[in-house]
């Protein structure tokens, strides 16, 4: 175990805490993407380059896009729903 491992492990836990505790959902998702990239580094340290490749492409890339897209959808829908509710009375 080297200092790099220790630092990486601590940073990983820190980003996980931030992803779970951020008040703003956008920040939580960005932290989750950072978490995925750090996971790719962890897999390299664990001598698993295959998983590192998959994690970098899937865990950080595709999942991030999916989550951000859904967040945009929720916000847009929220605006629409509140407009409709505001007009009704």
């Amino acid at each position, binding site marked *: 175990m080297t200092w790099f491992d220790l630092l990486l492990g601590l940073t990983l836990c820190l980003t996980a805490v931030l992803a779970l505790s951020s008040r703003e959902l956008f920040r939580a998702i960005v932290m989750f993407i950072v978490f995925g990239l750090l996971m790719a580094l962890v897999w390299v340290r664990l001598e698993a*380059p*295959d998983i*590192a*490749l*998959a994690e970098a*492409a*899937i865990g950080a*890339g*595709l999942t991030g*896009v*999916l989550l951000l*897209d*859904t967040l945009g*959808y929720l916000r*847009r*829908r929220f*605006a*629409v729903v509140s*407009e409709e509710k505001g007009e009704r009375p």
Partner: protein
Amino acid sequence: MSRKLLAALLSLTVTLALSLALIDRPLPTEDLPARVGQAMQSSGVAHPVTAVLLNFRSYDTLLEVGVLLIAVVVALALREAQPDGPDRMGLDNPLLRAITAWLMPLMLMVSGYLLWAGSTRPGGAFQAGAVLAACGVLLRLCGTGLSWLEQPWRLRAGLALGPLVFLAAGTATMLAGASFLAYPEPLAGSLILFIELNLMVSIALALISLFRLAPPQSDSPHFADRRRSRRE
């Protein structure tokens, strides 16, 4: 408050149980890397992870592609009845289009390389499929769309291609007298590459269609209105 306490208690209990399991871990009874190393000669590929994924434990991989297919089928069932409208994410930006035109061939090449590299070094159908899916998602985000997939039967044929080829290979080995998915040694390498090629197409299409099938369409006029009102 009580919910927070309960959550803390439960997660602490699970963490403690996992820690105990880690402290009191049993010694490995089987030397798996050595066994994989012994069997590598007959696997047809030179990279151990690919050999495990597509030869020694190919049954797992087959079932995993089945899981992907089931996820897409559920998403298809939840789809809106209305036809796919114009892409709401059509950011008509010339710069974006130019960059995409530059990146797309590179990404396709990387995906092909990953598939080819899988037999000798890190890489394989999953990574190649993920990069290919990223291509599709990028195209959709740029508003280019994938007109090729508009016809449902093409999408479905592409989705079924990987599992079908996999199953056909397994059944063929069974008919030839060996057990299910036990490839003959001289053919194993090319057979694995062929299965991986079809798997890559299916995995990429599954991920793209999971992204496409999320119901966004009928909000587009609202969105356009809001954007316009903000600009004015």
